[in-house]
C-alpha cells in the first residue's frame, strides 16, 4: 500500500482481490459494538451498523448479487446508502455510485453504459432541499441485461463528460486503502476518538473516502447535520463532546464564516475544505470567527486526496500526501500512476506512460512536494464542489430540437448559456427539455435566446462572457 498505484492487478482479477481478505469487515466495520460510528439524526453504534450491513447483504444476495457482480447505487446520503455500499463490497461486488440528483435521463444513460446487474434506489424521493441526509428504504432491482465485473475495480464513478458519453473512473479496493493510509499519516486529520461533521456528499470522493470511509477506518464518529444551514451545522458542532473537524466544500466555510454570533465551540479543531479553490480572504475570516484553522485539500475522483494544507499555513500551496509523485509538463500537473483509472478508454491526453494528467495548471517547488493549483486547463468547472463539464452542458443544449447552436460559459461562479434558436422557439420548452436531461446543478443559471450567436472575425463562436452579455442585452434578444 505504499506508492501510488491505481491497480497493480491484471484487469481480469475479480474486484477486492488486491485488498486484504474481508477488508470491509476487518478494516471498516470492526471495533467495539457499543462505539458510536454514525450519527444521521440518531446515533448508530458499530454493532447496529454491522447488523444493517448484514441485513442488506441478505437482500442483495436474494437479488442475485455475489462475488464479481456489479451494482449501481442511486441513493441519497443516508444510513441506507452506507449499509448498501458496504454490503455490496462485502459480497465482493463492484459498485458504481450514481449521484441521486441525476435525472432519469442521465441515470438511463449511465445504466446503459455500465450494465450493472442490480440497481439499488429508493421507491420514494423524500429529499428535501437543505437537508443533510435522507431516510430512505433501499430497493434492489435486478437487471437481466447486466454484466458481471470486467475489471478488478471496487468503485466506479462517472465524470461529467466533455465529449460523448461520461468518462468512467475506476478505483480498486487497495487504492482506497492506500488513500486511507495517507489520511492516517496526517496527524491533523480526524482519528480515533474524534468526531467528523461531514457536509460533503458521500456520493463523491471527498465525502466518501475523506469523510465516511476514513471515519469508519480511523474510528472517528461521523455526524451529518440534519440541516445544511449555518445554524444547523453549528448545532451539530456544539453537540459534540469530542475534538471535532468539519469537512465540506468552500461554500460551507462561507456559510459558517457568515454566521452572526456563533456559539462557543470549544471542541472545534478545524474545518477542512476541498473541491474547488478557496476565495482569498476566506481562511482569515473563518479563523477570526472561530479561532481555528480553515485547512484545504486538493484531490480528484481518480485518486482521492493529492495534497493538503490542513493548518492553513502553506496557503495557497499544499503538501503532497505520502507516496504521491508530482511533475509539471507544460504547466499541467501530472501524477505518477502505474495504470490508467479509465477502463476501456485509451486516451494518452488523460493517462500515458505511468502518468495521470490532472488537466489542472499548477506550480511546483524544487522538491516537487509543495504544489499550488492555479485552475483548470479544460472546460470543467466546479459548482459547490460538484464537477460540471461545460462541454456536456453545451452539447445537451445543442441536441434539443429548439436549439441550433449553443455557447456555455462560466462567469462569476455561475453557468450561463447563449442559444441560437429556431424562430419562435419557446423558452419554456428549452428549459423543460434541459430539466429532463441534466441534473439541476449542471443547468445554466441564465439562458439567453439570440437570433444568432456572435462570432469572431475568423468565424469562431465568441466565448467572452462580457461580449456575450452585451449581445444578449441588445433589443432582439430575450434573457431569462
Amino acid at each position, binding site marked *: 500500500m505504499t506508492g501510488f498505484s491505481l491497480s497493480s492487478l491484471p484487469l481480469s482479477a475479480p474486484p477486492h482481490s488486491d485488498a486484504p481478505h474481508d477488508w470491509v469487515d476487518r478494516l471498516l466495520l470492526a471495533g467495539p459494538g457499543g462505539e458510536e460510528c454514525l450519527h444521521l439524526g440518531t446515533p448508530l453504534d458499530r454493532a447496529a451498523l454491522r447488523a444493517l450491513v448484514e441485513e442488506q447483504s441478505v437482500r442483495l444476495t436474494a437479488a442475485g448479487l455475489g462475488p464479481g457482480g456489479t451494482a449501481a447505487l442511486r441513493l441519497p446520503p443516508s444510513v441506507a446508502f452506507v449499509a448498501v455500499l458496504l454490503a455490496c463490497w462485502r459480497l465482493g461486488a463492484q459498485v458504481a455510485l450514481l449521484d441521486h440528483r441525476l435525472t432519469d435521463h442521465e441515470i438511463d444513460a449511465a445504466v446503459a453504459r455500465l450494465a450493472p446487474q442490480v440497481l439499488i434506489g429508493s421507491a420514494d424521493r423524500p429529499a428535501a*432541499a*437543505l437537508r443533510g441526509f435522507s431516510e430512505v428504504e433501499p430497493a434492489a432491482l435486478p437487471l437481466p441485461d447486466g454484466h458481471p465485473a470486467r475489471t478488478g475495480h471496487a468503485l466506479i464513478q462517472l465524470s461529467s463528460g466533455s465529449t460523448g458519453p461520461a468518462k468512467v473512473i475506476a478505483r480498486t479496493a487497495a487504492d482506497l486503502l492506500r488513500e486511507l493510509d495517507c489520511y492516517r499519516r496526517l496527524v491533523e486529520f480526524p482519528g480515533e476518538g474524534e468526531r467528523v461533521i461531514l457536509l460533503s456528499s458521500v456520493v463523491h470522493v471527498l465525502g466518501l473516502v475523506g469523510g465516511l470511509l476514513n471515519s469508519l477506518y480511523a474510528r472517528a464518529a461521523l455526524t451529518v447535520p440534519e440541516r*445544511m444551514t449555518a*445554524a444547523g451545522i453549528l448545532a451539530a458542532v456544539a453537540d459534540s463532546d469530542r475534538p471535532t473537524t468539519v469537512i465540506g466544500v468552500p*461554500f460551507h466555510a462561507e456559510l459558517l464564516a*457568515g454566521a452572526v454570533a456563533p456559539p462557543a465551540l470549544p471542541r472545534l479543531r478545524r474545518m477542512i475544505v476541498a473541491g474547488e479553490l478557496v476565495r482569498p480572504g476566506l481562511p482569515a475570516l473563518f479563523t477570526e470567527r472561530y479561532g481555528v484553522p480553515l485547512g484545504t485539500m486538493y484531490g480528484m475522483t481518480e485518486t482521492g486526496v493529492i495534497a493538503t494544507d490542513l493548518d492553513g499555513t502553506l496557503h495557497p500551496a499544499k503538501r503532497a500526501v505520502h507516496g504521491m509523485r508530482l511533475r509539471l509538463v507544460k504547466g499541467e500537473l501530472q501524477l505518477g500512476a502505474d495504470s490508467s483509472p479509465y477502463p476501456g478508454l485509451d486516451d494518452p491526453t488523460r493517462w500515458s506512460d505511468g502518468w495521470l494528467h490532472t488537466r489542472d495548471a499548477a506550480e511546483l517547488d524544487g522538491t516537487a512536494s509543495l504544489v499550488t493549483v492555479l485552475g483548470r486547463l479544460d472546460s470543467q468547472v466546479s459548482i459547490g464542489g460538484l464537477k460540471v463539464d461545460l462541454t456536456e452542458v453545451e452539447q445537451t443544449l445543442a441536441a434539443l430540437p429548439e436549439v441550433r447552436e449553443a455557447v456555455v460559459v462560466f462567469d*462569476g461562479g455561475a453557468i450561463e448559456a447563449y442559444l441560437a434558436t429556431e424562430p419562435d422557439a419557446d423558452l419554456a420548452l428549452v428549459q423543460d427539455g434541459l430539466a429532463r436531461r441534466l441534473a*439541476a446543478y449542471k443547468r445554466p*443559471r*441564465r439562458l439567453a435566446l439570440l437570433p444568432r450567436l456572435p462570432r469572431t472575425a475568423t468565424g469562431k463562436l465568441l466565448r467572452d462572457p462580457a461580449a456575450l452579455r452585451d449581445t444578449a442585452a441588445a433589443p432582439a434578444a430575450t434573457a431569462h
Partner: protein
Amino acid sequence: MTGTEHAEALPDRAEVLTMLAAFGQRAADTVPEELGSLELTWLVAEFEQRYGLRVDLDDERFGAVRTVDDATELLRAAVLAERAGVRP
C-alpha cells in the same frame, strides 16, 4: 420561533439583495438577478438567522426559485405563514 427585531417586518427586495451580497462579501449592486442553488441556500440561512424562522422547502419549491424577486416572494410568504401559524 419569532422574537427578533425583524419579526414584524416583511423582507423586501433591498433586504434580500443585502443578504445575498454578504455571500462572498460582494457589493449589493453586483448581485446577479438570477440565483444559483448555493446563493439560495445562503439566503435561506441568512434569513433564518435574521428572522428566527425556519424555512422548510421541498426540492420542487427550492428549484422553482430562480430570481431575486422569486426569493423575495418566498421569504415574504414564509413570514406571513409564520404569522398565521401555518408553516410554508
